């Protein structure tokens, strides 16, 4: 087997960092995606344009440029934004939040497209029925639209998550100590770059497989009809 020469521990540490980044940026990205989709579908022209611009910008700009841009000018931008509200203290964003933020921005853009498609796929009768029984707009969204959109969006979101998982490798460029970072370090000191980058690659393959299985499970649990079917089949047996 492959001799890790005592670098197994740090590689595991890097894997943990990658996973943490992945989870955090998926969560923030999903929120950004829902907001982006709502903006896009909103009757307000300005909001709709804003969302379209967001998606098109992220689509055309390389991931690594986005990450570097957020890394170098993110805190200046946040400071400028906060100073509008009168908050002038110095803020420094940690590399972790810069990385997670940049990844979330990219995931959110693609996710907003998925959500938009899913929302427009939802039969109109659903929201009409909700309106008919007197639900408000917020309640309709959270009780009727979102649970069904989730189900429609999951397969495409799964693909996006796999893309995001691979994009996490880019944060090593801004010095975050993820798998790539430690693999590079270990490769340099042991003079065996191939071995360690290959191990890194295998870890990513493993993570991809795990995420794929989890998405598959998620699709199952998000689908009450499928669960019901499975239960019936089990009881018949």
């Amino acid at each position, binding site marked *: 087997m492959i001799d890790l020469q005592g670098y197994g521990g740090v590689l595991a540490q890097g894997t943990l960092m990658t996973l943490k980044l992945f989870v955090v940026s998926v969560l923030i990205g999903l929120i950004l995606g829902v907001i982006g989709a709502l903006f896009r579908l909103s009757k307000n022209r300005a909001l709709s344009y804003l969302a379209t611009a967001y998606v*098109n*910008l992220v*689509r*055309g*700009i*390389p*991931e*690594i*440029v*986005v990450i*570097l*841009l957020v890394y*170098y*000018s993110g805190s*200046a*931008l946040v*400071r*400028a934004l906060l100073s509008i509200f009168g908050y002038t203290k110095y803020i420094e964003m940690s590399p972790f939040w810069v990385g997670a933020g940049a990844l979330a921005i990219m995931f959110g853009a693609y996710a907003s497209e998925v959500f938009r498609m899913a929302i427009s796929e939802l039969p109109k009768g659903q929201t009409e029925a909700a309106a008919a029984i007197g639900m408000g707009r917020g309640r309709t969204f959270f009780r009727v639209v979102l649970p069904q959109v989730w189900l429609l969006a999951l397969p495409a979101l799964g693909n996006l998550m*796999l893309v995001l998982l*691979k*994009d*996490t*490798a*880019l944060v*090593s*460029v801004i010095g975050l100590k993820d798998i*790539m970072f430690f*693999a*590079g370090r270990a*490769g340099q000191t042991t*003079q*065996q*770059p*191939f*071995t360690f*980058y*290959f191990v*890194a*690659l295998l870890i*990513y*393959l493993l993570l*991809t*497989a795990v995420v794929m299985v989890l998405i598959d499970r998620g699709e199952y649990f998000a689908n009450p009809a499928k669960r019901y079917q499975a239960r019936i089949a089990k009881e018949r047996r």
Partner: protein
Amino acid sequence: MNFNWHIVIEHLPALLKGVPLTVQLTILPCAVGLLGGFVLAMMRQSTIKAIRFMAWVYVYFFRGSPLLVQLFLIYYGLSQFTWVQNLPIWEPILKQAYWCAMIAFALNTSAYVSEIIRGAMGAVPKGELEAADALGMNFMQKLVRIRLPRAFAMMIPAYSNEIIFMLKGSALASTISLMDITGTARTIAARTYTHMELLTTAGILYLLLSWLLMGGFRLLENRYNRHKLAPNAGI
């Protein structure tokens, strides 16, 4: 927050000099990827299980891991082996960042394109293949005259997406010291401490390139799918 326009204007020519390299790093791998993807797609449809499995492993390997790792594996990794260093292609090709990036990108995009081609070939209506059978076409004739042209027209949207991804992926070449748009921007920015300005300009250049590519592909798509357009349109 202040945006220094002078820096942008001063260094725009240098950034523009990186454009040809970015375009090369996008187009060449995509051209190779089309060929490699086709071969892989055919392997995936083979009747021999071992060949199907090999193609599956290849596709999973390259689609399941980050492009950055693949790039580093080839550029930094290969020097670990003395027998690779003794190969005749070591000096002119495998030691050069340019060719390493090309190889990594081409291998990577082949895997993605093979899935696109496979999907498009699977979507060719069965009736058309049966009609070809009825006319007595053999496997090659059916492939060259029916399946490939039809699949090509159908895969254009997905393939143009893949090219945009390759364009964005080509920016990774800057991590192995190549002076493409991103590489140039990063180098100048490191010297002048104007990361925001230069990276924004680089981003805009990429946006323009991607719009150009998308526009071109829209034309191509309209041409290859002209049977789907409104009747008498453009006549």
